[in-house]
Structures are given as C-alpha cells and as structure tokens.
C-alpha cells in the first residue's frame, strides 16, 4: 500500500461508500459510541482545553526543534544499543528492512499495527521477498485474512466487516468451526497468533513516540500483540515517522493521557511500553537486536510548508470520529491511507496535490474536527488553504468551475450589476433543473424565489428605489 488506496475517482468512491449501508451504519455506531466514551472520560479528567494547550505546545515545540530532538534521540538510542537507520523515502526504508531480513535469514515476521509501514508498502515488499508477514492486531489480522482488505478507520480498521463475514472468512481461510460470537472468534485467533508470535523471527512495530532524552521507543497498545512482537522474536524492527518524537518521559504523560482518551475514550491503554535498546545480556527474553528505521517520506516537505502544524498529529483518529462527512463515507471514501479531516489536511502535501486534491472536497467545512483535536491542529484552516492553493496556485479546478465562480465574483463585485442581475433571480423558479440546480434537487426541494427582493421591500417602505445604487 502507499498513501493512495484506491484507483476509483472521487465520484466512484462516493458512490461505493454511500451505497454500503452496513458500512455507514457501523461507522455511525462507532462514532456515537466512541465519542460518548471520549466525552465521558474527558469530563472526568476536566480542563479539556488546558490539557489540549499542553499537548499542542509540546507537539509544536518538538516540531520547531525537530532537528535537535531527532539528533538527540538517534544518539541516545544508539548509546542504548539500538541500531538506528535513516530513510529519506519509502524505497530506502524498504531496502533497509529487507537487508535486515536477509541478514537475519528471517522467513517470518509478526507485525503490530503501524500506519507508516502501510504508507511505505512494507507487507507487499516483504512478501515479494518470500517472507511471511502476519498482522497481529485483531482488526488488521482479519483484514489480512480477508483478501488483504484495506482498513476503514485508523483505530478500528475492520469496522466495515460484520461478524457473519468474519466468521465466513475464518472458516474458509483458517478452518474455524465455531459461531460468529466475537469472543469465540477472538479466542480462535488468539490460538493462531500465539503460534505465530512464538515462531516468528522478527517482530515489527511502529512507534507512538520516540523519547529524545533516552532513546526509548514508546508504544501504546491494548491487545498484547505489541508486547509479544517486542518480547519474543529475537529481532525487533521499529518503523517511525520522523515527527513522532517527544523530548522526555514527562511530555509522554500528556501525550499518552490524551491519546488514550481521544482515540478510544479510555483513561489508559492496556499496555504502555517503554523500550530502551535490545535486552540486557542478563535478560532471558526480549529482542537481541533492536533496529529503528526513521522515515521522512515527505514529512520534511510538510515541515517546511505552511502546513507544519498538521505534523503535530498523534494519530488518535478523533477527527474522523467527529467528522459528519466521514460518518457517511468511511476511510475508503477518501481514497488515501490517512482519511477524514487529517487526511484532507495532510495528504495534499504529503502525497501531492495532483494525485490527491479531491480529498479536500470531502468536507463541508463544519469545523467539528478543530474542536476535538487533542493537539489543536488547525484542520479547518488547513483544508480551506489547500482549496485556495488548488484553485489559485495549482490550478487543478475545471475551467467550467473557474468560469462559474469568476462570473459570480464579477456579479457580486459590482453593485450595479448585482442589483440588475438579482432582479432576474425569480426567473430561477422556471429554470430547467440542470447543472447546480439538478445536483441540489437530488436530495431536496429547491426554494421558491419570491417576487420581491428584500431591498425592494425596504426601498418601498422608505419611499426610495434601488436602481440608483
């Protein structure tokens, strides 16, 4: 996979998503349920706005000093015994990863979910080398088994699958003989993955935050697969987006406190793991080698752009859960690995305007995302500015649209023309339903234009007329 996840165009993706009623119902339920939990635990914590201030300050501070902190992290990680690698782009990251696999003669890897590994297409690349790579987050595992389906949400990736489908897939692919009760299916997967954990050569994870002060890697997980992948296989590889840094453990408190609540409405995730280097010589378990691959893949471009603040993101997914557009189209509708408001704000810069400008269309500019982002990313403002860049700088809008808006701009830019033109608006009542009127009328009735404008009523009342405006 890479950033682009679909070959369909915007209209086709909308069609596909909107016609999937199970998906829409699942996402609506997920939004309602998780949002309620999130609100409850923030109400319990109190002072949400102040906590957001702290988290936003921390992330901003890190980004403003990213060169320093990344350098500090790399040096300290190395001192702690980790091997630190640097990858400018996806291709380089994959090369480094495959070299490690070759060196270790590794045939099997277990992976704990990581967005950046999906961004670079790690699974596909390793499979081409003949490596068996097993996703171990339950949702990701189920997607992998079901024809390598793509995640529809970053925190609950298999949201679009119902239990019947999951039972079918497990029966067909893995010989599951039980019913479709989630607990029973989960127990079944536990047994399968247990064997995978115990026999894997390499454990792969992402990195929630890299602690600059000590070179530690901090992971936030719930199922235990992250802990397995980092305790049992002899080699552990961490893939890290370069912006995922925190200065010290103290900042990690704020960030993890917000992440657990914003992502799933929990006070803490079940496991918060701080991993400093490979195991000590005197430890019986833990990896013998710890590799950390720090990845740029366009992030430095974002850092130098007007959209630097979007890199504050801690991947909580709450913007997606709050978004009324995401509610109806899910992650797949956005056609990109990062979806929802985050995707609309990040992907045009990370993945390029030409390939992804349409992602900014999937937004009604309601601003709900701004209100929940734990690190105060100006998502609304970013999406708006992308639209300006797309229309005025990149010039990716259609000439028809440009002409229509130019026309509109000219009319409202000239009071005399506006006054004259709006006298004719009531003719719209007779207009054929083509163009915008047709689109409007798909879902709603068209308002009836009254015979008299407000200004005519006001002028009459006052005893003046408007034609001398």
């Amino acid at each position, binding site marked *: 996979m890479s950033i682009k996840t679909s070959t369909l165009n915007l209209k086709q993706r909308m069609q596909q998503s909107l016609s999937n009623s199970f998906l829409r119902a699942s996402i609506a339920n997920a939004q309602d349920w998780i949002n309620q939990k999130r609100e409850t635990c923030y109400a319990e914590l109190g002072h949400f706005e102040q906590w957001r201030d702290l988290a936003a300050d921390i992330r901003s501070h890190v980004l403003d000093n990213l060169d320093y902190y990344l350098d500090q992290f790399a040096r300290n990680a190395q001192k702690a015994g980790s091997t630190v690698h640097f990858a400018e782009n996806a291709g380089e990251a994959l090369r480094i990863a495959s070299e490690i696999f070759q060196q270790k003669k590794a045939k099997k890897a277990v992976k704990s979910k990581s967005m950046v590994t999906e961004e670079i297409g790690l699974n596909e690349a390793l499979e081409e080398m003949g490596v068996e790579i097993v996703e171990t987050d339950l949702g990701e595992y189920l997607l992998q088994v079901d024809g390598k389906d793509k995640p529809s949400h970053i925190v609950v990736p298999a949201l679009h699958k119902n239990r019947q489908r999951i039972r079918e897939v497990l029966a067909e692919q893995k010989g599951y003989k039980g019913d479709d009760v989630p607990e029973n299916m989960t127990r079944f997967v536990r047994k399968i993955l247990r064997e995978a954990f115990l026999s894997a050569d390499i454990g792969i994870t992402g990195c929630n935050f890299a602690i600059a002060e000590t070179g530690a890697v901090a992971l936030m997980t719930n199922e235990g697969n992250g802990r397995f992948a980092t305790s049992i296989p002899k080699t552990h590889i961490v893939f890290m987006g370069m912006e995922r840094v925190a200065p010290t453990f103290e900042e990690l408190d704020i960030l993890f406190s917000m992440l657990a609540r914003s992502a799933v409405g929990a006070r803490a995730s079940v496991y918060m793991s701080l991993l400093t280097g490979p195991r000590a010589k005197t430890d019986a378990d833990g990896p013998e080698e710890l590799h950390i691959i720090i990845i740029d893949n366009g992030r430095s471009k974002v850092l130098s752009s007007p959209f630097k603040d979007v890199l504050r993101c801690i991947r909580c997914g709450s913007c997606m859960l709050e978004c009324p557009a995401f509610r109806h189209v899910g992650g797949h509708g956005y056609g990109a690995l990062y979806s929802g408001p985050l995707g609309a704000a990040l992907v045009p810069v990370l993945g390029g305007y030409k390939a992804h400008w349409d992602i900014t269309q999937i937004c009604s500019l309601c601003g*709900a995302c701004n209100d929940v982002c734990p690190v105060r990313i100006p998502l609304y403002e970013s999406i*708006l500015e992308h639209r300006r860049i797309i229309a005025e700088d990149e010039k990716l809008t259609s000439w028809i649209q440009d002409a229509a808006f130019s026309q509109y701009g000219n009319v409202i830019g000239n009071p005399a023309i506006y006054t004259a033109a709006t006298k004719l608006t009531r003719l719209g009542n007779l207009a054929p339903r083509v163009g*915008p009127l047709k689109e409007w009328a798909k879902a*709603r009735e068209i308002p009836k234009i009254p015979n008299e404008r407000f200004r005519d009523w006001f002028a009459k009342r006052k005893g003046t007329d408007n034609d001398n405006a």
Partner: protein
Amino acid sequence: MRISFFVTCIADNVLTNVGIKSVELLEKLGCTIDFNPRQTCCGQPLVNAGYQGKAKKSMRVLIDALLEDACEYVVAPSGSCVLQVKEFPRFFKGDSLWEPKAKLLAGKTWEITDFIVNVLKITDTGAELHGRAAYHPSCHMSRLLGVREPPLQLLGNIKGLELAPFKGQDKCCGFGGAFSVEMPDLSGAMVAEKVRNIADAGVDYLIGADGACLMNIEGRIRREGLNIQVLHIVEALMKA
C-alpha cells in the same frame, strides 16, 4: 441606536422574510435601520471553494457599503456571513488602505442574536409561539464564530415554545456552500440524517439562525413531505 443592516445575499434574494423580520425586530427593540443597497455578498461561496482572489472585489464593495453610513454597529441575520466579514482583515493583510477598513468593519459587525443579547441586553422580545421546536446550531455560527448561547436564551423566552433536543443536534446539516451541489450525494446523506433526527423528535418547528442551513434543511423536509415548519430565529422572535 442606529445600525447598518447587512441583509446577506440569501436573505436579500431567497429568504426575504428573514431580512424583513430582522428589520422589524430590530426596530421593535428600539433601533433605527440603515440599509445601504450597494451591499452585495460577503463572498464566502468563493472563498470556501478556494477562489480567494476572485472574492476580493466583492469584499471591498461590502466593506465600503457597510461602513458608508458610519453606524456604530453592523448587524446581520447570519453567523456564517458575519464570520466571513471577521475574516476580511486576514485577506487584506499588509494592504495599507483596505486592512484598516476591514478591521474597522470586522470590529463592529454582529450576528443578530448576539447583538440583541449582548449589545441591546435583551433576552425577551415578547414573542409568543406555541408548540415544540428543534433548534439547529449552525456550524459556522456556533463553532467558528462562537455564538452559542444567545439564540438559546432568546428562544427560551418565547412564550409557549418548548425546545426539544434531538439526536445529532450539533452535527453539520450538510450544506457546506458549493459542497451541496458539488458533493450532492454526500451532502444529501447528511441532510437526510439531520431531518430524520429532527422528525424523530416530534416537533412542529425547526428553528435556525443561518439561512443557508435553513434552505438546505427545509428543502429536505419538503422533499420528505414532513409537517414541520422551518423558521429563521428572527421569524420566531416576531411571532405574537
């Protein structure tokens, strides 16, 4: 108190009763209304679609029209249009002629319920309307402009009116400007859910403070043939 009335293009040309009732309401509450017919549109459809440059001409037209009468307050019956005006200084940053003018206008422009409650200091307009009403808090007005309480205070004092909460009350209605015609199916899905939730609340009225949202919601209500009357808050506040 003299105020300069910014009618907004939707209330000028489509929901004209909103303009009319706004004027009557403000007069009832003791204001004298100046209306400068040289005003056109705040330009938000252009800006939201990315055509900031193409909107500048209309912004200058609006700035001049609303400042011409040198009233102390400029009042509009639309939170999104007022928000747009408050953004004008940003668009003219560095322009020694227009930035100060934009700042002057932005500083004295008020959304109508905000003006009534926080400037006129009135929360009871003496209105009477019997029935159950759902209130839709428009996104730009409540989240981005920050005007959340004034409409509720005013509605709470309408004699006989029961305000009913409904599921997804503060979710976007799906209008989003050009979004409603450029992403018609998604926008349609959003307004359909909103209207379903409103209908489930068993209300007689749907009241809002932004004409754009109301056109959208009312269009869907009529498409579904529901017996719910859609009112702009100024219309409700003028019921007796």
